[in-house]
């Protein structure tokens, strides 16, 4: 579903964010991406979302080689990916319903379908009945879940998350990861960047480790020791 072949990314500032990274994610896989701050996790996700272009190498998502895809096709690529941001990226002057419905509006779906799907997505993240709330009135954990509802409402085959537990307490973080696992069990390919090593270990899933832009390790789920979640 996602393939990196010898991908390097150098920012205009000269910073080498990724160095010859190669890996492959099968459809339906759930993978964690970890590494210290500045290791290149966000950059890797931004490449998949076509927010940046690889300096060298090939990024292939859902059978499409992004290195050879024109920038005006970027929206089409992004519509097939649900992305969850650490800072939520919600619109505070729109209700929860309006926030979550954005991807469906963009797809031009019928309004009755939009209502049904938004309700289902909010159900799934445990926010039933919050359609008319304003994001600012919600707790950090609830806001994050609004972001997740927006990411999954269009049922994209790929779900990306960049440090989704950044501001959450351990209890909420655990719940959130459980939600990811649940979505993954329904067939969505999930890639989560996080530096919460203890939590990642408890999930017993495949882990990619970045260090200074290099892929330092690729550990399969069965090789992870420690207590299960």
């Amino acid at each position: 579903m996602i393939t990196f072949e010898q991908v390097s990314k150098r920012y205009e500032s000269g910073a080498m964010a990724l160095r010859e990274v190669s890996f492959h994610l099968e459809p339906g896989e759930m993978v964690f991406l970890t590494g210290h701050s500045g290791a290149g996790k966000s950059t890797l996700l931004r490449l998949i979302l076509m927010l940046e272009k690889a300096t060298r190498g090939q990024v292939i998502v859902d059978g499409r080689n992004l290195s050879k895809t024109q920038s005006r096709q970027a929206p089409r690529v992004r519509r097939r990916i649900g992305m969850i941001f650490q800072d939520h990226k919600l619109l505070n002057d729109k209700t929860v319903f309006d926030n979550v419905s954005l991807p469906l509006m963009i797809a031009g779906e019928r309004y009755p379908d939009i209502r049904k799907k938004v309700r289902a997505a909010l159900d799934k993240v445990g926010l039933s009945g919050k359609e008319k709330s304003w994001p600012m009135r919600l707790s950090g954990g609830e806001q994050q879940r609004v972001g997740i509802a927006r990411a999954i409402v269009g049922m994209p085959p790929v779900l990306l998350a960049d440090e989704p537990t950044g501001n959450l307490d351990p209890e909420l973080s655990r719940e959130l990861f459980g939600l990811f696992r649940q979505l993954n069990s329904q067939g969505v390919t999930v890639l989560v960047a996080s530096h919460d090593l203890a939590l990642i270990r408890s999930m017993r899933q495949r882990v990619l480790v970045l260090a200074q832009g290099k892929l330092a390790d690729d550990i399969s789920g069965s090789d992870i020791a420690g207590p299960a979640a």
Partner: protein
Amino acid sequence: MNRDSFRRRSRAWGRRQSYSFFSSLGTLLSHRLGTLMTVLVLGIAMALPIGLYVTVSNLRTLDLQREQWGTITVFLNSEAAEAQVQELAKLINLDHQASVEAISPGQGMEQFREASGFGQTLDLFEDNPLPWVLLVTPRLSDGEDLGEAVARLDAWLQERAEVDLVQIDFKWLQRLAGLLELGQALVSVLSVMFSLAVVVVVANTIRLDVASRAEEIEVLSLVGAGNGFIRQPFLYSGFWYGLLGAMLALVLFNLGLYYLQQPLERLLDSYGNQFEVVNIGGSGLVLIVFAGGFLGFLGAWVSVQRYLRQLRKSGMLGRL
């Protein structure tokens, strides 16, 4: 592309348009004061050329070759007696192809009393100070120019001993004709200038709109909105600004007309014309309103293209 997928795509496109449409309406309504200010500026800007246009086109409907316009007012000596006056009138009528209306000092006083409202004051005069007056209106023979006919009569009248003063309004009308040419040119120039002003005002408003909604644009772009979907609400906003501005302009113009209509008609009636101000007709109204909408749309387009490109260059929407 097969027909089914085409139909599905065009339906999705239509729904996207309607979502953008309502979203733009929502934005305008949620920023009521700002919207009102913009619309007010646009309304005033558009009312001016509309007003001038209607004024000029009304005045142009006047037929400057109509005989009444050539009426000459002839003030006779105070010594001229009624018999003499009638003799002169007959002479003009028969020998000089002109109809003549004689106004006695008494009638003149009566008219002046009515028109001026000085009723009481005028009673203070013991003797009527007004002379006999002849209103001489040339009868044009085929192909004769009104200006020439008036000049011919004037030359003859100046020579008569009974005549004290010949007053010709027709010169004033000739100047008006010249002014109308100028007015028409001015309407064209002003229309272009104020159209440009509308485009610029809307462009600037939309620029601020884009800037204040940079975050929303970023989020839309992140969740897969294309150029069109991001641009559309701003274009609709521009359209609404222009449309509402034009409607307000028409309201302002009609208010102005309401105050000016009576004095204007009275002025023109005094030249013997049954004059009625012709307002903009139904199709003209529709044309103006949609021209306003189009100009607003244009301003929004220019602005949105430019500032979305800037946002994109800043890297906020990704660096591709």
